[in-house]
């Protein structure tokens, strides 16, 4: 399974590292932002769609995320782990902003629910983002690690069965599970940092 890039966006360096993309954006390269859009645009859009439930709203948020990202590019650390967490953090803020705007315009709903003036990212949004980033990063891990993690936790297979199916030593499977989980945890930490 390949991670879901945005089709139709032509990029010159599709294999460059996440660190390079982060550095490029921080340095003010519009080409780097374009590459970030191609690489993570579907992730951001799917998060927005799941959080807001409306295609038009999701599109508006996705567009705003990349425009905001450019405006605040000097705050982006050129680290290997900074992306996509930084973009997801911006997405959560834009989602919260849009939701607050929608609620304000529907006064009956606001009155009925007696909403406070401060609407922040709900914990539901956080879980949506977390789960989607995890699914995305899992696909980026590549096989056999991604396949092993899927078999272990999504299909719930015993490690011995995984080893037999993939014709790998059991210790190799165990190592992939450990390292895969550690890698995913590190990715998620970046996301929760920007909540």
């Amino acid at each position: 399974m390949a991670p879901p890039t945005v089709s139709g966006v032509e990029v010159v360096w599709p294999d460059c590292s996440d660190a390079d993309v982060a550095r490029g954006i921080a340095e003010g390269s519009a080409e780097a932002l374009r590459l970030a859009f191609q690489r993570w645009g579907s992730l951001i859009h799917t998060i927005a769609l799941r959080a807001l439930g409306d295609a038009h709203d999701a599109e508006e948020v996705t567009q705003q995320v990349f425009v905001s990202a450019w405006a605040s590019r000097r705050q982006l650390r050129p680290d290997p782990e900074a992306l996509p967490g930084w973009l997801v953090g911006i997405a959560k803020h834009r989602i919260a902003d849009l939701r607050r705007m929608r609620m304000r315009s529907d006064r009956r709903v606001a009155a009925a629910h007696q909403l406070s003036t401060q609407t922040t990212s709900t914990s539901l949004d956080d879980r949506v983002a977390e789960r989607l980033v995890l699914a995305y990063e899992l696909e980026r891990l590549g096989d056999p690690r991604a396949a092993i993690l899927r078999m272990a936790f999504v299909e719930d297979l015993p490690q011995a069965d995984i080893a037999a199916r993939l014709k790998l030593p059991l210790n190799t499977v165990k190592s992939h599970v450990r390292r895969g989980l550690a890698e995913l945890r590190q990715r998620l930490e970046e996301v929760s940092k920007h909540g």
Partner: protein
Amino acid sequence: MADPDLTPSEREIADTLRFLAHDPVTWVEPPAGMWSRIQQALSAAEPALGTTGDQRSPGSVGSVRQLHTTREERPRPRNITRRSLLAVAAGGLIAGLGLGAISWQQLDSRRGDVLATAELTPLDAPDQLGSAQVLRTPAGLELRLAAARPFEVQSGYIEVWLINRDGRRMVSVGVYSGQSTESFPITADLLQQGYVVVDLSREVFDDDPTHSGNSLVRGQLNV
């Protein structure tokens, strides 16, 4: 999989992965055209971004271009057999200016984003005689050449090639007047496939489309 061996934080990830079994993700791409809308919003906020200024018309590079009637088609790679060129290709490739991390260039607001550059130097004596850049313009990617001093053309012409990293295959991207700055349309695919060594050759009108073996200058793009 039972996971008694996992640490609490590992187990947290494992549990979130389990959700994917019940709730597999359907990725939804942004609609077509979103990137150009983003780009327009960026340009509106910062007028220096994007391309302004002269929009080169397709026929403006020079009438010599008409020699190559297949300009509109994607250039096809040609296998070269001239031993001299092969030998030179192996020994004369200039070390890339940035083969490690990508060198993001600053915006060239006059024409487009500069994606890569190369110094063009003669194979036998490394004086820089020109430079090459890859630019992204609204019309697509282009290879832009600039001569430090005009090249002598005499009775032939100068052909521009992109040679593959493997030193064996090459593609012609056009004919260069050798006099000033000229641009040639190229594709990202060409660069991705490794055609990143810019070579200028002196050619004669001999109905032979292959490289004459007479390279004037060469340089590797830092992609």
